[in-house]
């Protein structure tokens, strides 16, 4: 089947477009997720993240392009592919009257290999009671049950749709630890959408940023962080920094505020920066790296000059 393509991406989007009536939810999105890597799809609410997840899981047929799982069309080969995929949906899909033990017993026969012992151990680690109906579990426990079910058949690909949504700090910590353990033990490929940029920052290998359905960024996190910088000039210096002086840095945005001038540089170039510093009128700048969250905000803010 897909044996010939085993060296290829585990999951991919090839020009995927999704329309809901006149709304363009995904606009020709192309990206690939390599085996054993962790890909984080980021975007504001309504940016198109969930539409992409639905396409990947074969639940939504793209208006154009295609999503692939293990090299095969996700829409057409959903049935075969899903045996190799674990899914943690945004909304828990365990019936509210079913408890964790029943849910595991229900799912076990659906898969050729299903590690019930491992799943029970995972629930014990999480502290999820096995005899309480899912509808009465806390938000965090529902998510943990979802993760235990998703991992029980040892999937090659784990898809998580905003897994930390509504989780408190402790539950989020437990989820990441479990995810890290899975990566360490099984090298599972992971695709996740999330709003928790601080949490995903240390786990993702690659990130994609969706803005209004378009993939505006698709890059290794390490490379991304290496090229973004924040450059600040203090209050006293602010007046002396005309915008055109900063032009060689090609700043993404320039903010003038009470505490001086601040600019985000998208492609920080050490040499260009040194030439800039050497200029006579240039006050001393302060340069710092940016967290993924800061980069995300800068990318979503767009290339504009803001005065406040």
């Amino acid at each position, binding site marked *: 089947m897909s044996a010939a393509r085993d060296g290829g991406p585990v999951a991919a989007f090839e020009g995927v477009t999704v329309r809901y009536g006149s709304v363009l939810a995904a606009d020709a999105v192309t990206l690939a997720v390599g085996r*054993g890597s962790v890909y984080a799809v980021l975007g504001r609410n309504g940016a198109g993240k969930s539409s992409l997840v639905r396409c990947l899981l074969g639940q939504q047929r793209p208006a154009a392009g295609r999503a692939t799982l293990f090299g095969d069309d996700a829409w057409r080969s959903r049935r075969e592919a899903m045996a190799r995929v674990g899914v943690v949906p945004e909304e828990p899909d365990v019936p509210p009257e079913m408890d964790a033990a029943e849910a595991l017993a229900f799912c076990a026969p659906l898969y050729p290999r299903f590690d019930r012992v491992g799943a029970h151990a995972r629930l014990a680690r999480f502290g999820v009671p096995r005899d309480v109906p899912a509808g009465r579990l806390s938000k965090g426990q529902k998510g943990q049950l979802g993760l235990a079910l998703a991992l029980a058949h040892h999937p090659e690909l784990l898809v998580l749709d905003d897994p930390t949504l509504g989780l408190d700090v402790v539950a989020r910590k437990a989820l990441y630890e479990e995810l890290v353990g899975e990566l360490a033990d099984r090298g599972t490929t992971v695709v996740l959408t999330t709003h928790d940029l601080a949490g995903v920052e240390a786990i993702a290998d690659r990130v994609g940023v969706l803005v209004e359905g378009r993939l505006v960024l698709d890059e290794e996190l390490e490379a991304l962080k290496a090229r973004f910088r924040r450059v600040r000039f203090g209050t006293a210096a602010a007046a002396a920094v005309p915008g055109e002086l900063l032009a060689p840095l090609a700043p993404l945005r320039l903010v003038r505020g009470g505490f001086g001038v601040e600019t985000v540089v998208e492609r920080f170039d050490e040499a260009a920066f040194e030439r800039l510093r050497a200029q006579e009128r240039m006050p001393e700048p302060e340069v*710092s790296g*940016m967290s993924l969250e800061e980069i995300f905000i800068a990318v979503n803010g767009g290339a504009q000059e803001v005065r406040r």
Partner: protein
Amino acid sequence: MGRTVAIDPADPAPIWRQIEEGVRRLAASGALAPGSVVPSVRELASELRVNPATVAKAYQRLTDAGVLTVRRGEGTYVADPPPRFPESERRRVLREGATRYAALALSVGADSERAAEELDAAWRALDRSGARGRER
């Protein structure tokens, strides 16, 4: 500080490098004595909640540089005795570190003299803690 490695998300240096330098620092200051066990890749990844591949990369580089040593089936240890760097490796490591430090100094507006003063002070602080006694 203690015996931990900290990750700073605002640091443009990749996380594997932050871990690598953190462990180097702990070993150099004596907080991690030669022969002491370092956490497994899985343990440290869980503790820091970072991708295990990132920790593995840092450990691999530390092992290549002779800071850590792997005893098969037993785990990873701080190398004992402290590594004697070949000159080429020593030059590479020093240059890499110096370039980063110089860039850092530059970014906070320090000149080379000021940067050298701080380096000197850091050196003296290590001396006091006895870490340099292990160097050869």
